């Protein structure tokens, strides 16, 4: 039996329909009544209703999907899109950081390096993964492994899914800010193609530290923001419960980011969100990665670097009031 899907607050009306369908099914099985017409009608109604709900999601609803506890994680994609994964744990300076996974793998038969934030699949796993919030050593491990790719001319694929870099005592002592800054600097001059996939939460600096790439693609219901809606709300209104308003103000959805030119492509998710269909989501991502690798791999180092620099050089909107 498939485990029950965690229901988001705005999906309640869909659950009621689902329950009714289940009831009818049970009834038709136990009573030999032919209810298939009713079931069919209700199923169509459910699908239409779900489509409708998912067509006009508010930014806050998107945020809830991006944070869905059953949403596929980096390791879910690693299993589905890559082969021969060899995880590398050594940052060389501090103990391993389980909030980031990285290693060697093959994608469509070609060797690549994969790096990503890893959130947990349940409470216990989340504690092990620190809820996907890395310490500096996590970013330094990621950098060390990405440098291997750079040294041996292998493309880098990163998966972004973090509430943010961990705001803790030891993290500060060991230079969280420097670790993030260093990754930005180094990633901007890699000589190999870098494809960034934002799959869940792109939480501020903690996301940026794995987010510099030649192509940045984003799942339809992922978010990417300078601050969490809750953080923004508590600064603006001194009230974290106004996160819904903050989510709207921050313009953090994939469509917004596409408009700002921060991402290159929105990767569609199955209706109902990635957590309802890992396979389709993974296949959609796979196609996008393959497309960008095919575009980037023939480029010379100079072309690649020039293109990447030009892209980030022009980011920002301002006026010259001379």
């Amino acid at each position, binding site marked *: 039996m498939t485990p029950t899907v965690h229901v988001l607050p705005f999906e309640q009306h869909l659950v009621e329909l689902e329950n009714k369908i289940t009831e009818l099914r049970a009834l038709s099985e136990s009573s030999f009544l032919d209810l298939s017409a009713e079931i069919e009608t209700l199923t169509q109604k459910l699908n239409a209703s779900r489509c409708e709900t998912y067509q006009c999601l508010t930014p806050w609803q998107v945020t809830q999907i991006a944070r869905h506890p059953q949403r596929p994680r980096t390791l879910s994609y690693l299993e589905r899109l890559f082969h021969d994964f060899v995880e590398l744990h050594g940052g060389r300076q501090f103990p391993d950081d389980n909030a980031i996974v990285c290693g060697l793998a093959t994608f469509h038969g070609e060797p690549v390096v994969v790096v990503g934030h890893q959130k947990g699949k349940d409470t216990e796993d989340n504690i092990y993964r620190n809820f996907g919030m890395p310490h500096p050593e996590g970013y330094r491990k990621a950098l060390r492994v990405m440098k291997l790719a750079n040294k041996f001319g292998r493309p880098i694929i990163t998966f972004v899914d973090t509430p943010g*870099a961990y705001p803790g005592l030891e993290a*500060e002592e060991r230079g969280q800010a420097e670790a993030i800054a260093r990754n930005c600097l180094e990633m*901007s001059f890699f000589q190999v193609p870098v494809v960034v996939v934002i799959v869940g939460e792109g939480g501020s600096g903690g996301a940026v530290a794995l987010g*510099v790439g030649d192509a940045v693609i984003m799942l339809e219901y992922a978010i990417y923001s300078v601050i969490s809606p809750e953080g923004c709300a508590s600064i603006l209104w001194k009230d974290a419960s106004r996160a819904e308003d903050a989510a709207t103000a921050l313009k953090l959805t994939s469509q917004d980011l596409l408009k700002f030119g921060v991402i290159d492509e929105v990767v569609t998710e199955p209706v109902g969100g990635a957590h309802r269909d890992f396979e389709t989501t993974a296949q959609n991502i796979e196609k996008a990665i393959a497309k960008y690798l095919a575009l980037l791999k023939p480029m010379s180092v100079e072309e690649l670097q020039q293109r990447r620099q030009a892209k980030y050089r022009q*980011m920002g909107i301002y006026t010259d009031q001379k």
Partner: protein
Amino acid sequence: MGWFAKTRRNIIPSNVWEKCKRCEEAIYRKDLEKNFWVCQKCDYHFALPNLDRINLLADEGTFEEFDAALASDDPLQFQGVVPYRERLKKSQAKTLVKEAITTGYAKICGLPVVLAVFNFDFMGGSMGSVVGEKIVRACENAIQRRHPFVLVSTSGGARMDEGILSLMQMIKTGMAVARLSMERIPFISFLADPTTGGVTASVAMLGDVILAEPGALIGFAGPRVIEQTIKQTLPKGFQRAEFLKEKGVIDMVVHRSQAKNTVGKILRFFA
């Protein structure tokens, strides 16, 4: 002290006495000015307005500003309690500048540099599109002129009102520093109170040499966020310049009276 002569402090109605924020000693304002706005009793470093900072570091009459006309737009049409556009106007009226950083050419101890100084009075020195652009242009100027780059940071981090575009400035400025590095242009990063968030986690922490003022709060996350996360009271002095020197995060803690000389000494090494 000549370097205070033309500062904007003049437009603020002057008080004869100032109270030290740490030891609460009443200090004669003129004495405080002579002492670089450092308390003579407890060495507390008062916040130094952006122009005073330029005057403190740059040789008299050498500073020539770049890009003073760059101003922020409102790309998100950001609606907070007060709309972003209004907040910008207010800050511009208060500080008489267009944005939260001043960049330009200067000489320090006779050596030419490109100098950039954050302005904390302008929306907490936050980094949006203009601050990012001005830092990048300053770096490009430094490369073109083959002058070292000196950056003094006081900033609350990335500017929320410009959302993702502020976040992208971390990458953009990091990339500019990478170019400085490739061109072998020295970069001295000087951190004043406070330097936090996206500015620390990008350009500020990438200096070839990183200096900080005594007592300056420097960090990625703010102390309140950390306390809420770990549910503990933070130790005394946590995230202060001295603590970070002890942890090896920064290179040196420099008293304000020694700031110019120290920067000069480091510049001479690279010159």
